């Protein structure tokens, strides 16, 4: 039976100083009772706005500009506050993305449960009920006495989930419920969620950018692009026969890193600017199958092969055929998307390993923190050794808090190890003891060792142009002056694939897409002509569809320029695609190391296997149902 009906819903943002922006356009879909529906899309596609519109939680300048939302017979868009209040939470609840802020910081967890019960006049013992609910999400009852800031991110999100289920709602809107959490924690929460849904039978609208998660969890998946739903079909259907080119592109960026051959694809280009009017299909500029008609006619969302798709080419059945079997899907899907870029893992190319340019030798780092009179020590890194070689990528893999970033800081001289040595042997002069550098010598050292940062939005100064960002290392390290700087900057931009460079030099960071920014960041790192490049999660903040693109760039640079790269990541798939060697770090200790294919393909260590299992894998949903208990016991409490 239909629980939620969304009909021709449009949401428009009308900010004061900027042109109006229709974030959600003419969206229609249903959710049946007990159904788990995924809403998939990249950042800015309007999926969260849609979620908020369903809950009628939009706040100005966003407003519903058309259509209606009918929940259980009630039109949410026109209901009075009182009608709505009766509906809220008892039937319709939600979990927000930012667990950090979704609980009132100044009252205890228990009070937030009590509030909820009181608002809906639920009689009975709050503590008992709340304890019961917390048990549902595997939390101890002492959490009730805690203030939100005393809980970890995972615990807060569990509390939020428990709260969402408090009144046994019919539909829960989950807006990126696990984004920002550690992979392992993420996995355990999702597992629990799946179990709960089976037990309690509520319907779910699951909003996420993470295709793997959505396909794995959902019964049915809706893909959103540019404020519109472009495809809507069952998860299985989506997996086996994606019909929209965009969906295909997204699916192409996934693969099981354990397979002998791994290939992923990406979608070049960037999402449309919704503040401008568009003709034709919004995806046309990025679509490999676009035809002339696509540029003129805006396609409708029409039934096609058991689902709905908004693509003229697909509707006219002129898409290349893809038939995927579960087993070989990951290995082959990329090839079905030939016009886009693709990246294949470096495989077993047996390099002649050159001399190490940088050696990390039995390095440990201990932090001492003082709390009042007590001091406590944490060993962030213990006895880690490795070497970096020209033309080779060494991946450092581990979950958050494993000490990866500490190692990056030690290698770049930002911090000094408590014991052990970091030696740089690549310079023209004698070996540099990085752990002893200071002042001017440290600056000189950084000529050779550069970084690519995790967040391209924070790695570029928002007020400085691309040209300025690139000029600094050129002035400081290459000693360039005058027009030479601009020429060299242009060369650098072109070397990272931003051509013609003239278009980019005078842009401000916010005028660039995430991928373009990351390319600028990379170009800046290349400016001093370094020998070592430290890439700290360079793709984790990027949209899925372009991750492979950046990986490809990094890979090319390493091999063409004979750079030694330390690639830091929690993502084994990207490590598999990029790295020659993998080091697995758990709580500051290297637990496993070796050639990429060996480590990932045949992991020996439990921790490595845990990391592997935590990767959402739409291609093998059946395989993992039994693993949940393992995960939980490994990470109690999240």
């Amino acid at each position, binding site marked *: 039976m239909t629980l939620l009906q969304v009909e021709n819903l449009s949401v428009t943002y009308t900010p*004061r100083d900027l042109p109006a922006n229709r974030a959600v356009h003419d969206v229609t879909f249903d959710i049946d009772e007990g159904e788990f529906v995924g809403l998939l899309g990249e950042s800015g596609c309007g999926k969260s706005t849609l979620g908020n519109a369903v809950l009628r939680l939009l706040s100005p*300048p966003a407003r519903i500009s058309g259509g209606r939302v009918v929940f259980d017979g009630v039109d949410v868009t026109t209901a009075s506050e009182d009608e709505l209040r009766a509906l809220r939470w008892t039937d319709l609840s939600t979990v927000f993305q930012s667990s950090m802020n979704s609980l009132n910081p100044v009252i205890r967890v228990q009070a937030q449960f009590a509030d909820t019960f009181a608002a809906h006049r639920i009689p009975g013992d709050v503590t008992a009920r709340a304890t019961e609910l917390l048990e549902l999400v595997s939390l101890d009852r002492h959490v009730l006495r805690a203030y939100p800031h005393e809980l970890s991110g995972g615990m807060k999100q569990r509390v939020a989930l428990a709260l969402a289920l408090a009144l046994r709602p019919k539909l829960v809107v989950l807006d990126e419920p696990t984004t920002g959490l550690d992979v392992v924690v993420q996995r355990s929460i999702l597992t629990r969620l799946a179990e709960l849904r089976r037990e309690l039978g509520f319907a779910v609208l699951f909003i996420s950018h993470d295709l793997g998660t959505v396909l794995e969890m959902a019964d049915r998946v809706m893909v959103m692009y540019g404020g519109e739903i472009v495809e809507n079909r069952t998860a299985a259907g989506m997996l086996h026969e994606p019909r929209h080119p965009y969906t295909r592109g997204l699916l192409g960026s996934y693969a099981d890193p354990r397979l002998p051959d791994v290939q992923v694809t990406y979608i070049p280009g960037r999402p449309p600017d919704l503040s401008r009017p568009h003709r034709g299909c919004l995806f046309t500029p990025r679509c490999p199958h676009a035809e002339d008609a696509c540029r003129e006619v805006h396609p409708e969302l029409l039934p096609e092969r058991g689902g709905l798709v908004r693509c003229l080419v697909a509707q006219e059945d002129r898409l290349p055929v893809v038939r995927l079997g579960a087993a070989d899907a990951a290995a082959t899907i990329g090839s079905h998307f030939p016009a886009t870029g693709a990246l294949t893992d470096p495989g077993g190319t047996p390099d002649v390993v050159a001399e190490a340019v940088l050696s990390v030798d039995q390095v440990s780092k201990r932090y001492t923190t003082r709390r009042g009179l007590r001091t406590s020590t944490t060993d962030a890194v213990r006895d880690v050794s490795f070497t970096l070689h020209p033309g080779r990528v060494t991946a450092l893999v581990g979950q958050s808090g494993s000490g990866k970033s500490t190692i990056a800081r030690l290698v770049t001289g930002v911090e000094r190890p408590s014991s052990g040595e970091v030696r740089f042997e690549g310079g023209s002069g004698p070996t540099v003891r990085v752990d002893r550098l200071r002042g001017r010598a440290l600056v000189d050292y950084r000529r050779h060792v550069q*970084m690519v*940062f995790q967040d391209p939005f*924070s790695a570029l100064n*928002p007020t400085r142009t691309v040209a300025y960002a690139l000029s*600094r290392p050129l002035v400081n390290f290459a000693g360039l002056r005058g027009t030479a700087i601009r020429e060299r900057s242009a060369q650098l931009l072109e070397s990272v694939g931003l051509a013609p460079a003239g278009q980019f030099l005078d842009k401000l960071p916010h005028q660039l897409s995430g991928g373009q920014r990351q390319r600028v960041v990379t170009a800046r790192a290349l400016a001093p002509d370094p020998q070592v490049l430290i890439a700290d999660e360079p793709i984790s903040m990027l949209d899925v569809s372009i991750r492979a693109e950046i990986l490809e760039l990094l890979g090319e640079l390493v091999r063409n320029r004979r750079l030694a790269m330390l690639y830091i990541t929690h993502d084994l798939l990207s490590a598999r695609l990029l790295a020659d060697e993998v080091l697995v770090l758990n709580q500051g200790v290297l637990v496993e190391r070796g050639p990429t294919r060996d480590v990932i393909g045949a992991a020996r260590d439990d921790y490595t296997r845990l990391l592997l299992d935590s990767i959402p894998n739409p291609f093998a949903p059946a395989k993992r149902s039994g693993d949940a208990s393992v995960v939980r016991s490994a990470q109690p409490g999240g």
Partner: protein
Amino acid sequence: MSTPAPAVPAPGADTEGLQVAATEQARHSRLPGWFVILWRNGKCRIGLLMLGAFVLVALLAPLIAPYDPRGDDFPTSLAPTGGHWLGTTAQGEDVFSQLIVGARTSLIVGLAAGLLSTLIGLVIGLTAGYLQGWVDEVLSFLINLGLVVPALPLMVTLAAYAPVRGLWLIIAVISVTGWAYGARIKRSQIITLRTRDYITAARFAGDGTARIIAREIVPNMTSLIVVGFMGAALGAIGGEAGLAFLGLGDPQTVSWGTMLNQASLGGALLTGQWAWLIAPGLALSLLITSFTLINFGIDALSNPHLRED
């Protein structure tokens, strides 16, 4: 001791975003980006227009003022007449001329003391926030000290001690007592900004600390600095008026505060010269209003939650 509501954005406000908007704007327009952004906001626009009027009056004061503000050749204690729109003082000076010239003083004090205290606050706040460690401890202590020491009594005390009570002394006193609030805000903002990757990136690009602060951090705090400046200027204008009213100002300077002081001593209430009493107070109030309106605008822009929709 009522201080006008501090219209300073809460720490952590989106100062970078606003700066980006301004930088972006500057590329499309011949006017400064900041101005365009502020102009778009209704409150700001009114504030800017008012302030512009005051600045104009101050700049053109010698042309507008019908008489020498100190010229005392007129009959004393006149009520408003055609020749003396606001009457004359007990010493036979033209009140209207004093009012016009007083705008200058208030603006100079606002500008100079605002700049000075912003500068002090900036240097101390930035140094504390960027260097951290014991330097931060010491400077934070100073900042907190500056925050808790009661300002007006301190101002009164300092002003009374100075050997020459010129306008610049008043400016110095106001600056010395008024920098702490801005310093605290700037410190917390720089602590946020210094963890940005682009700061690390600048260091990897070989830039030195001074350059990083000046070229990477400060531009991203512009709105904060502007708001801080406006707040400080506003406080300074009020402070000068208060001190002058108490007779602790520079009696040689024609300012709205000294006018009120003179009006109070010169029996304006007694002789029913309401214009002499009302005009400077109203002018002061309007000037402060213009600053406050501009500040509200900036605040609304940089603080997404306060944005008017």
